[in-house]
């Protein structure tokens, strides 16, 4: 049932131009950065050769794309999640799901899964670009894998937060702005914390993503993202249940 709902959600997403526009826009940015970085690598290749332990093609050309992707997705995921619940409410189509023999958990998970599926497509496009370098150079597959896992977890947390915010309102635009605010807040929450022991570092999204970009997959970061995603999914389910009670 979750997959039926996810398939429906993806179909609706791609039936509107929004998903296509976002995909095209993301790909344009990623390709632009990627191209610039590859170009940069080629110009400094001679100097790199003289270093004792030179950074490779992956470090210079591919990893920065993931870095940019993390921030660009932070801006664009709210645009996609805003309609998940808010638009169903506004178009009064939520009733179809609510009167069907489907639990609230299934509805929320279906919608979340659809978003993860969409983000998977974005990741595949980035990977396709990165792996194209295999044709003419050496690529550090381990680093790419760590970056991919990190980006996927990060983007899924964006999706979970966006989904929850979408449950709070029936105006998609409000949902978009609000989730953007929440995400940015979580992104930069530790910016003013000069003390490295400050608990603010624990909640910062950026902080946990950084270790993935460095190529290491730490259990702490995995747990952080999984807990964050689970928390907002549970909150969404609770919120929708409360809807039925309060209406």
């Amino acid at each position: 049932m979750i997959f039926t709902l996810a398939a429906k959600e993806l179909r609706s997403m791609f039936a509107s131009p929004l998903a296509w526009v976002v995909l095209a826009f993301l790909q344009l940015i990623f390709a632009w950065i990627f191209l610039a970085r590859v170009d940069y690598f080629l110009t400094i290749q001679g100097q790199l050769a003289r270093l004792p332990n030179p950074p490779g093609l992956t470090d210079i050309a591919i990893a920065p794309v993931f870095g940019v992707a993390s921030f660009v997705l932070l801006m664009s995921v709210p645009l996609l999640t805003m309609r998940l619940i808010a638009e169903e409410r506004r178009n009064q189509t939520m009733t179809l799901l609510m009167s069907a023999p489907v639990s609230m958990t299934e509805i929320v998970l279906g919608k979340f899964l659809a978003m993860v599926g969409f983000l998977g497509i974005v990741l595949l496009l980035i990977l396709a670009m990165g792996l194209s370098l295999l044709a003419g150079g050496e690529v550090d597959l381990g680093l790419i894998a760590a970056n991919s896992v990190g980006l996927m977890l990060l983007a899924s947390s964006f999706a979970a937060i966006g989904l929850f915010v979408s449950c709070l309102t029936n105006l998609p635009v409000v949902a978009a702005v609000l989730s953007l605010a929440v995400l940015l807040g979580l992104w930069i929450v530790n910016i003013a914390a000069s003390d490295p022991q400050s608990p603010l570092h624990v909640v910062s999204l950026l902080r946990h993503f950084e270790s993935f970009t460095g190529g290491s997959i730490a259990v702490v970061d995995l747990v952080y993202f999984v807990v964050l995603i689970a928390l907002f999914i549970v909150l969404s389910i609770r919120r929708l249940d409360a809807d039925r009670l309060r209406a």
Partner: protein
Amino acid sequence: MSAVALSRSYGSNRAAHDVSLELRRGEVLGLLGPNGAGKTTTMQMLTGNLAPSAGTVTVCGIDLIDRPTAAKARIGYLPEVPPLYRELRVDEYLRLAGRLHKIRKSALHAAVERTKSRCGLSDMGRRLIGSLSKGYQQRVGIAQAIIHEPEVIILDEPTVGLDPNQIREIRSLIRSLGSDHSVILSTHILPEVEAICDRVQILHRGEVVFSDSIGGLRQFRGGHWLQVALHRPPPAEELATVCGSAEVQQVNASMFRIKPSDGEDPTDALVRACVEHDWGLYQLQPAHASLEEVFVHLTQREADEAPGREGVGT
């Protein structure tokens, strides 16, 4: 299906109070009431879209609150605004509705085709729902509610905003549904209830004020007024005396509406008097009370008899 003592309040506003209803298999029940009488609230509670503040709903013996998924599988619901995804094609949408209602993949195609032919949508399968006219959208909404062959079909104002032809078609569709499903239908149009329903419940300010078969409603509406038109009318008071101290309203220069005092039929006396005094009687008919009058009557009687409401509607 049965609902017992459903209540729901929004803050201090009582949207539904102590609403009970019972629906037998193969019966069409009409929920009638003016705007804001609590029809939609009641239906939302019956379909599990809204949790009642008090009361229980059971569908085929299954409690809607204890086992919502099992109960909801037996209900088909068309809300006031049909829940349509405008960006989907009719076929896609009906397949989705079928899957949501747990129709097996192998049976899905047959179910979609059967439902489409039933609702007159056979040629519309490839069309986008957003491009359909309102009448067809309404049919898609009904199709969505019946695709899984539910025991109970709940339709909230299914004919609002349609043209007369479409209304007729939808009504005959509903009547045909009533032969093998149970249907609850809400409306604020009294003739609609008389045309389709077997039984009727009238809601007013969130309470059931009338519950009877359609024959009972007809009697109730018809039995209270007499409409008389005279070429040479006497003063209204004289008519009142003739009819045995009845209440007489003058509609226009030649037309009167007479409300006899309880239990009396003044027709005989009236006709005799007309001939005797040469009033020129040219029309005499039992006037059907309009819905508003039924409401006024019901609510007034309720006020008179309060708190003894047991007598209502038998």
